[in-house]
C-alpha cells in the first residue's frame, strides 16, 4: 500500500525534477526547521498553557500530528477503501 521510495529524480530533465533540486529543497527544509527551533533560544514566546512552554512544542506537535494523520489514513484504507466502481455494481 505504500508507494515505492520516491521515484529516482531525473538527472537532465526539467530543473524542478532534478535530484539536486529535490535534495536541496529537502535539506533546505531541514535547515529552516533547525533555525526555527533555534530562534527560541533568543526569543521567548508567550504561552497560555503550560505544555506550550516545552522547547519547540509547536514544531514537535506539527511533526507528530502530520505523521500520525498519514499513518491513521493508511490504516483507515484497510477498512473503507473499495474499488472505484463500488457503487456502480
Amino acid at each position, binding site marked *: 500500500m505504500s*508507494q515505492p*521510495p520516491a521515484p529516482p529524480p531525473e538527472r537532465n530533465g526539467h530543473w524542478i525534477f532534478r535530484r539536486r533540486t529535490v535534495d536541496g529543497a529537502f535539506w533546505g527544509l531541514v535547515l529552516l526547521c533547525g533555525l526555527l527551533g533555534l530562534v527560541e533560544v533568543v526569543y521567548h*514566546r508567550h*504561552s497560555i498553557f503550560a505544555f506550550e512552554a516545552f522547547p519547540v512544542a509547536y*514544531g514537535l506537535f506539527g*511533526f507528530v500530528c502530520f*505523521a500520525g494523520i*498519514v499513518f491513521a489514513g*493508511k490504516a483507515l484504507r484497510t477498512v473503507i477503501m473499495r474499488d472505484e466502481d463500488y*457503487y456502480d455494481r
Partner: protein
Amino acid sequence: MIANLSPGLILIVGALLVPLLPGRARQVYMLALPVLGGWQLAGLEHGAYGQTEIFGYTLTLLRVDSLSVVFGSIFLIAAFLNVIYAMHERAPMQEVAALVYAGAAISAVFAGDMITLFVFWELTAISSVFLIWASRTEAAYRAGMRYLVIQVGSGVILLAGVILHAHATGSIAFDYLGVTGLATTLILIAFGIKSAFPFLHNWLQDAYPEATVTGTVVLSAFTTKLAIYALARAFPGTEMLIYIGVIMTAFPVFFAVIENDLRRVLAFSLNNQLGFMVAGIGVGTPLALNGAISHAFVHIIYKSLLFMSMGAVLHRVGTIKASELGGLVRSMPLTTVFCIIGAASISAFPLFSGFIAKSLTLSATAEGGYVIAWLVLVFASAGVLEHSGIKIPYFAFFAHDSGIRCKEAPLNMLIAMGIAAFLCIAIGVYPDPLYAMLPYTMEFEPYTGTHVLTQLQLLFFAMLAFAVLVRTGLYPAELPSVNLNTDWIYRRALPRLYGWLLQMGSRLRAGTLARLQRRLERFISQVYRHHGPEGVMARTWTTGGTVLWVALLLGGYLIVFYL
C-alpha cells in the same frame, strides 16, 4: 441605488435575461450584475427595509447590519470571480443557475425574518443542483438527486422549526435564538445540515466533486457559508458548537489523506474549514465570532482559488485523479503558482489570508480555556497543511512527471485565479480593512512574534514530516479507489435493506399465495367429489324414490305437527 431592493434580487432577476443576450454583451452583462449588486449594497445604510405585514407577521426583505454586510460583500466578490472564471464557456443553464444561486444566497443573508430566509434557503438548493446536473453524466444526475433531497430536506426542517417557533413566541424575526426547545433545535439541525455537521456532512463530498469545472467553484462559495452566517446570527455562544466544530475540523483530514479525487480532497478540506468557523461561533466571544466571520470571508476566496486551480487541471487534462496526475508544473506554471498561493492561504502561512483569520479563532479558544478544543484545532491545522497545503499542489503539479503535456489554463481562468490570489496575499499582508468590517470590536494583532513563530514551527515541521515520509516511501501512494463514508448508508445499506425486504416480501407473498391455492384446489376437489358428474349430489333419482321421500317427509311433518 434603489430603495428597499436586496442586492441579491439584482442577480436573481438579472439572471433571467442572460440566455437572451449574444456573446460579448452577455459576458459584460453578467459581470455587471455583481458590480450593480455591490453598488446597491454600498448605498444602503444599516437598518431594516422592505417590511410587509402578512397574517400578522412582519416580513423583512432587507436587513442591513455589519454581519449581513460582511457576508453579502464576500458573496458578491465570489459571484464576480465566478463569472470571470466561467467566461470561456457558453452554458446558459449553468450561467443562469450560478447567478440565481448567488443571488439567493445574498438575499438569504439580508433576510430579516425566517420566512424570507426559508424562501431563499430553498432557492439556493434548487438553483444550485443545476450546477451538478450540468455535468450531464449518470453519476452527476444521481449525486444531484441525493444533494437535492438533503438540501430541500434541510429547508423543510427549517420551516417546521420556524412554524413551531412562531407559534410559541409569535415572532418570525431572525435574530439570536439559542437552543431553547424543539423549535430552535430543528432550526439548528437545518443549519447543521447545510454547514455539514458530522454525520450530516456527506452530501458535500458526494455532490460537489460531481459538478462541472465551473460549477464546483460556484458551489464551494455559497451554501455552506450561508449556513455559517445563519449560525453566527442565531446561535453564537452555543457551547455544543465548539465540540461539533472541532470534530468537523478533525475527522475529514483522515479521509482527505487517502482520497484520490483532488476535488473531493478539497471538499473534505472545506468540511474541515467549516469546523473552525463553527467552533468559533460556539466559543461566542467577540474575538471568536470575528474569527469565524473573517475566516468565512477569506475562506471563500482561497477555497474558490483552490477549486479554480483544480478545475483548470480538469478542464485541460480531463481528469482530476491524483493517481493519474503529476508534473503539471511544466505545462501549467501559472496555475501552479496560483494553486500554491491558495494552499499557503488555507494552511495559514503568515502573510497569507488564512493566518489573519484563523489566529483569531485559535486565540479565542485558548483564552476561553478550552484546552482540548484548542489542541484539536491545532492538530487540524496540521491536517489542513497535509491535504490542502501539500497534497493538492504536490500531486497535481509535482510528484513524478506523469508525461501529461497540456496548455496553460484559459486566460479568463488565469485572471480569476490571479485576482483571488492577489486578494489572498493582500488580506494576509494588510488585514486592517477586513478587521474594520467585522461586527464586533476587538483588540487583536495577528503579527506578534509568538503567533508567527509558533505557526511557522507548526507548518514547517509538518512539511518536514511529509518530506521524510515521501523520501522513505512511507507516504501512501495515490490509488484509484472509492472510500466509504456516511453516504454508504443511503447509497448501499438502505437500498440493500430495501432489496432484502422486497425479496422477503415477495417470498412471503408467494408462500401465502401457494398455500391459498392449495386450499382452494382442495375445496374445489371436494365440491367436485360431491357435485361433479360422479358425485352424490349429481346422481339422478328415480321418480318413485323421490315420491317415497316426499311422502316420508310429509308424514314426519304431520307427526311433529300433532305432537
